[in-house]
């Protein structure tokens, strides 16, 4: 259950940020979409309550009304306890104590959530990338869904830099799946953990790689980087990156939004046009991929083989 940031701006009177540090990572989130905005139905800052849930006190805590510091790795337990309290079920106080919060704090949070006219829960990498991973995200989404028995409540992921949201959307509408899609058999198959990049590279499954709009040479686990260096890797990037240095082919492209036009998606899945102010001496990623595709298409079609002979 989600909504646009415009709705948040105009309606949300109760805002939770969980496992994120918008003050430093999404600097204009407060001012453009949430607490610092005058909304149609929320006249000022006083009309909104902001709760920050995190494992340490970040600069975002200063902007919050309530800061809840939880024990690292206990997000799932906190969410599950909240879900129980929302339904008025009994909870185990010993387990609550392990989360770093008291039952009073959690009960207070639930009461406030229920009293809200429009609640929104933004969750960041601090939730989805720690112990529990996608189970945490699933739990948060379930909490938001269950809250709708009492009031309007939505959950929205705080997506990172660039156009990651666009990648999800485009992959979804072209293949039916959001990421990690295998088309080796000619049709899309989806299985995270099997066809996700880190797993593929660490296992050494791929025998060539095309990297664009990312620098895994700086962010992947080392065995994955080693494998990228072993196989022919092709990099498209406006700069010569870490990955370019271990690649066979690097092509310099225009920088997205600065010298390359196009569309990108905001974190709430609203597509926005780019207005690049500069003209790049380099071609855009779009153009280079299209040219590679044309060059591949000129070669004879691919056929499955059995014992070296083409199958019919």
């Amino acid at each position, binding site marked *: 259950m989600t909504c646009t940031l415009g709705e948040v701006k105009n309606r949300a009177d109760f805002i939770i940020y969980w496992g994120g540090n918008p003050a430093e990572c999404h600097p204009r989130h407060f001012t453009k979409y949430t607490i610092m905005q005058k909304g149609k139905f929320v006249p000022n800052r006083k009309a909104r309550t902001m709760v920050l849930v995190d494992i340490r006190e970040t600069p975002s805590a200063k902007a919050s009304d309530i800061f809840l510091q939880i024990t690292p790795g206990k997000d799932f337990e906190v969410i599950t306890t909240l879900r129980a309290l929302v339904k008025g079920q009994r909870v185990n106080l010993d387990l609550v104590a392990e989360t770093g919060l008291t039952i009073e704090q959690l009960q207070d949070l639930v009461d406030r959530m229920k009293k809200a006219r429009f609640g929104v829960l933004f969750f960041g990498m601090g939730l989805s990338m720690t112990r529990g991973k996608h189970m945490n995200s699933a739990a948060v989404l379930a909490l938001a869904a269950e809250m709708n028995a009492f009031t309007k409540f939505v959950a929205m992921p705080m997506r990172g830099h660039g156009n990651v949201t666009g990648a999800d959307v*485009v992959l979804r509408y072209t293949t039916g799946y959001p990421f990690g899609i295998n088309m080796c058999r000619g049709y899309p198959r989806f299985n995270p953990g099997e066809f996700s990049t880190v797993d593929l590279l660490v296992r050494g499954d791929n025998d*060539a790689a095309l990297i664009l709009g990312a620098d895994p040479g700086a962010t992947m686990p080392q065995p994955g980087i080693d494998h990228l260096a072993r196989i022919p890797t092709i990099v498209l990037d406006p700069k010569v990156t870490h990955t370019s240095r271990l690649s066979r082919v690097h*092509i310099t492209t225009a920088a997205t939004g600065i010298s390359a036009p196009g569309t990108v998606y905001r974190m709430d899945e609203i597509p926005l046009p780019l207005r690049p102010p500069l003209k790049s001496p380099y071609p855009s990623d779009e153009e280079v991929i299209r040219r590679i595709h044309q060059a591949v298409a000129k070669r004879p079609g691919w056929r499955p083989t059995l014992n070296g002979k083409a199958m019919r």
Partner: protein
Amino acid sequence: MSLNVVKNATCTFCGCVCDDIELHADDERIVETKRACSLGESWFKNHTAERLYPDALIDGKPATVDEAVEAAADYLYQANMPLVYGLSNVTCEAQREAVSLAETIGGVIDSHTSL
């Protein structure tokens, strides 16, 4: 020198994708970024339209884009299980081209989301 002013430009540095930025640019670089936050400002000022890098590199040596495209096509064509990965700092138009390329070469396509 006259500046090229772009109103309502879009910043793609973080997921906020602010589309209310006013950019002032000369021929090569962006000199003013009104309403952008400090992250957005350094993002815009960090990229210029100068020729800082060779058009393409093959095995670390400068090459033309045509040669690099052919070399890339060769590698991808010959591979049994090529990977197309990244997609975060590119436009949706480029992402669509990447999906269609991945389909033709029979590969895996994946984004940052899977990390």
